[in-house]
């Protein structure tokens, strides 16, 4: 009995003392934290949250998400890149690790880069052309599982890359590195090659960085910062590269990323100054009140466009959407403003074209109804084919946002007279369903594309070249394949400069006016609340983030 009494008493005292002790240290710790903020005001540590997510990979040759790339740009030294400038100036490539843009042979197949002399990795070792050769090798090595093959098909572009990619050669015969000279031989002329080199895969990489499909977590880098520590799911810390002597800004001493924060808590942390910014953006439902409180792009609430476009995909390969009139009718029927409203205030700009602002060749035009569904016009364009069209299998993932989008589109289609069957599909099987060529799916609202590099090829050719359609695992779901348009795309891809831009502007318009393979509806905005101390905001539409190295916390 006595033991029981003692246990109860002990537990009561222990519980109470645990709370009291924790509360007691709270005051002391709170003052420490506030003092810490004062120290940070000198420009020390930039604190960044990532609500509900973390970097997938930080290995430069495997990472693919935009946030991953925004961080890697802070530590990396690509051959060419985007300057830390706002607006259109920030979308113009410039030589970063190279002294100038490459010299190109007359046949357009050989590119020679001269690497900037004197550059060093964060461990003090020199950066030479071999560092870029290694980047190509790690990107294309079968031991890495890099997404490059699927996404840009680089293995077909460089001489000897295919053999290396398939494990039949130990080096890429078309790439040679001598001192500070890097030579790349292509299988055929490719006007997008320099643009592709702006991707983070082709950043200076230490020649002995190992091949690993798991990716490295920390590694020597040649940009303004390096990854000092990385604990997946918990934190990633960047520190200034002591050997970086270039012109790119390196304002904070340290940049700390805290992943997987609850979005509401993250907003409170940024409001209170415990964090400086949430990379993922503020909670959409808070945008309107934040805009009211701070104004848009006036003080702490920032809104900026991304190079990402959302679209509703139609399966062009089977009825009813093998009928172009019905595809056009759907483009008239979809209520684009309603789709944008689903995403909250300042979610983006309505669109009915494929290219996004900032990409060469983008010329705004208006073919379909941007201000709302035009049911009468849709019925007129679709004509009697609407009534005789088979039932539309509308496939969407079971997430709330996806379901909401689908419900609005399905309502729009029914208004016009289409018969629609709602097919909610778990994300685990969704891509199998829509990614198979002989699929039964007709339509999905789960479509979107962000620029891998700022070139119209990355939108038009990548999304609509039907010759790349395979039996399964297709990453694009319109199954649009038009021989005439394929030829036009091929021709445009060979052009350069303003001729290229004009050709793609024409293709962009022709695609929607003549074929309407998808329903583009939104150029996505990013919106952020910043802490009161955050300064020097330079936003990159390409990364959909500010340049972290340029941000100042003084």
């Amino acid at each position, binding site marked *: *009995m006595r033991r*029981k*009494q003692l246990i*109860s008493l002990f*537990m*009561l005292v*222990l*519980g*109470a003392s*645990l*709370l009291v*002790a*924790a*509360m007691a*240290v*709270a*005051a*002391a*710790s*709170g003052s420490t934290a*506030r003092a810490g903020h004062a120290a940070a005001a000198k420009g020390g540590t930039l604190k960044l949250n990532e609500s*509900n*997510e973390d970097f*997938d*990979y930080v290995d430069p040759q495997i990472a693919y998400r935009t946030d991953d790339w925004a961080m890697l740009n802070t530590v990396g030294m690509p051959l060419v890149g985007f300057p830390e400038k706002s607006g259109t100036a920030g979308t113009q490539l410039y030589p970063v690790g190279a002294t100038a843009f490459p010299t190109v042979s007359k046949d357009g197949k050989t590119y020679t880069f001269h690497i900037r002399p004197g550059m060093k990795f964060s461990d003090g070792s020199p950066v030479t052309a071999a560092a870029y050769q290694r980047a190509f090798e790690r990107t294309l090595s079968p031991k890495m*599982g890099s*997404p490059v093959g*699927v996404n840009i098909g680089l293995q077909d572009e460089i001489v000897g890359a295919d053999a290396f990619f398939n494990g039949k050669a130990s080096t890429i015969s078309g790439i040679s590195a001598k001192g500070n000279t890097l030579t790349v031989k292509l299988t055929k002329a490719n006007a997008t090659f320099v643009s592709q080199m702006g991707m983070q895969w082709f950043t200076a990489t230490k020649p002995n960085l190992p091949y690993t*499909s*798991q*990716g490295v977590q920390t590694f020597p880098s040649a940009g303004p910062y390096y990854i*000092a520590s*990385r*604990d997946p*799911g*918990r934190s990633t*810390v960047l520190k200034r590269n002591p050997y970086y002597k270039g012109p790119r800004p390196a304002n904070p001493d340290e940049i*700390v990323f*805290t992943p*997987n*924060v*609850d979005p509401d*808590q*993250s907003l*409170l*942390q940024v409001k*209170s100054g415990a964090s400086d910014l949430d990379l993922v953006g503020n909670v959409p439902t808070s945008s309107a009140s934040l805009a009211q409180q701070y104004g848009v792009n006036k003080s702490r609430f920032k809104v900026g466009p991304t190079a990402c476009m959302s679209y509703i995909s139609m399966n062009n390969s089977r009825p009813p959407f093998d009928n172009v009139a019905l595809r056009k009718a759907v483009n008239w029927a979809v209520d684009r403003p309603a789709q944008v409203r689903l995403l909250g205030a300042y979610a983006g700009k309505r669109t009915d074209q494929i290219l996004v602002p900032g990409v060469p060749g983008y010329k705004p035009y208006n073919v379909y109804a941007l201000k709302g569904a035009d049911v009468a016009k849709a019925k007129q364009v679709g004509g009697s084919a609407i009534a005789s069209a088979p039932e539309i299998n509308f496939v969407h993932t079971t997430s709330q946002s996806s379901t909401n989008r689908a419900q609005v589109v399905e309502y729009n289609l029914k208004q016009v007279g289409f018969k629609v069957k709602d097919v909610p599909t*778990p*994300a*685990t*099987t969704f*891509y*199998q369903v829509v*990614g198979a060529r002989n699929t039964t799916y007709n339509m999905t609202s789960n479509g979107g594309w962000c620029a891998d590099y700022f070139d119209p090829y990355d939108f038009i050719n990548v999304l609509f070249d039907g010759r790349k359609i*395979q*039996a*399964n*695992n*297709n*990453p694009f779901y319109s199954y649009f394949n038009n021989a005439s348009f394929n030829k036009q795309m091929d021709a445009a891809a060979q052009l350069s400069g303003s001729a290229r831009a004009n050709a793609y502007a024409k293709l962009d318009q022709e695609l929607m006016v003549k074929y309407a393979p998808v329903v583009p509806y939104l150029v996505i905005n990013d919106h952020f609340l910043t802490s009161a101390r955050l300064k020097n905001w330079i936003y990159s539409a390409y990364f959909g983030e500010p340049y972290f190295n340029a941000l100042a916390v003084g």
Partner: protein
Amino acid sequence: MTHFLIRRIFWAIFLFLVATIITYLIFWVIPTNPAQLAAGHAASPEFLASIKHRLHLDKPIYIQYFYFLQNLVIHGSLGRSFLNQQSVDSIIGKDAPVTASLVFGGAVLWLSLSVPIGIISALRPRSVTDRLTMTFVLIGISAHPVWIGLILSFVFGYKLHITPIAGYCNFIPGTAGAQCEGPVQWAYHMILPWITFMILFAALYVRLIRANVIETMSEDYVRTARAKGASQRRVMIHHVLRNSLLPVVTILGMDLGLALGGAIFTETVFNLPGLGNQVIRAYGANDLPIITGVVVFSTCCVIVFNLIVDVTYGFLDPRIRMS
């Protein structure tokens, strides 16, 4: 006692096997294509085939399960995350202490609160104290932990600046890249999570203890003790509490085991990098090895805690081990 112990251990092993079979079937066979998930939805057919082979998905289901069990039991391996190729073992090894610090800290608080309150409430049924207690119970059971957590961090973290809004600090210093660490910062960051986690369980336990005590007080042996002239204090401690708290031990064992599998809501709200937070992210990303790993770990925790409770119970109550 030895027989009882052996029986219980075999039962635990059997439970483990059944649980892993069910877990494996749910997550790896119906209705997903794990190879597709691992390879990414844009993978080439060749890459997909190589992933299928690597994961043994080209073999019959019983062989797949055998490999899974072999990896788990012999190599102690739960595989690698589809998302970032991290070892699931190391992820669980890193996250489990965070969940444990939440669960055990919370358990100390909820027991410290619920045992005395439950007893007092039972001794004075329908009194003002009892009604206030039941109001607390009702609120504790009804209010969702996410709401409680958000309100607490808004009031105490954001408005009053008494506690952090969210976040976690390691108890043991020395982690690379850690922004805060050590016992003081750890406790400071855990105040609100503990309270949030405690509220629901404290409410449930107050109700449980109150009901048990009231029920035990009406037992014949209590009446007999009173008739024999035993003091109220002696009756309460020797006869009532000893018997009425026994079921609490059972429930506590199960609750602790279950909660160690991840206090999902509390961890999510306060950004604690524990198993609950991990499993929620894994679910969003269809990261099957992580989900399976956490479920297996959780199952093991429940089995081990149940075993401990059963054995303890056997010691405390001879009728159990004789049955």
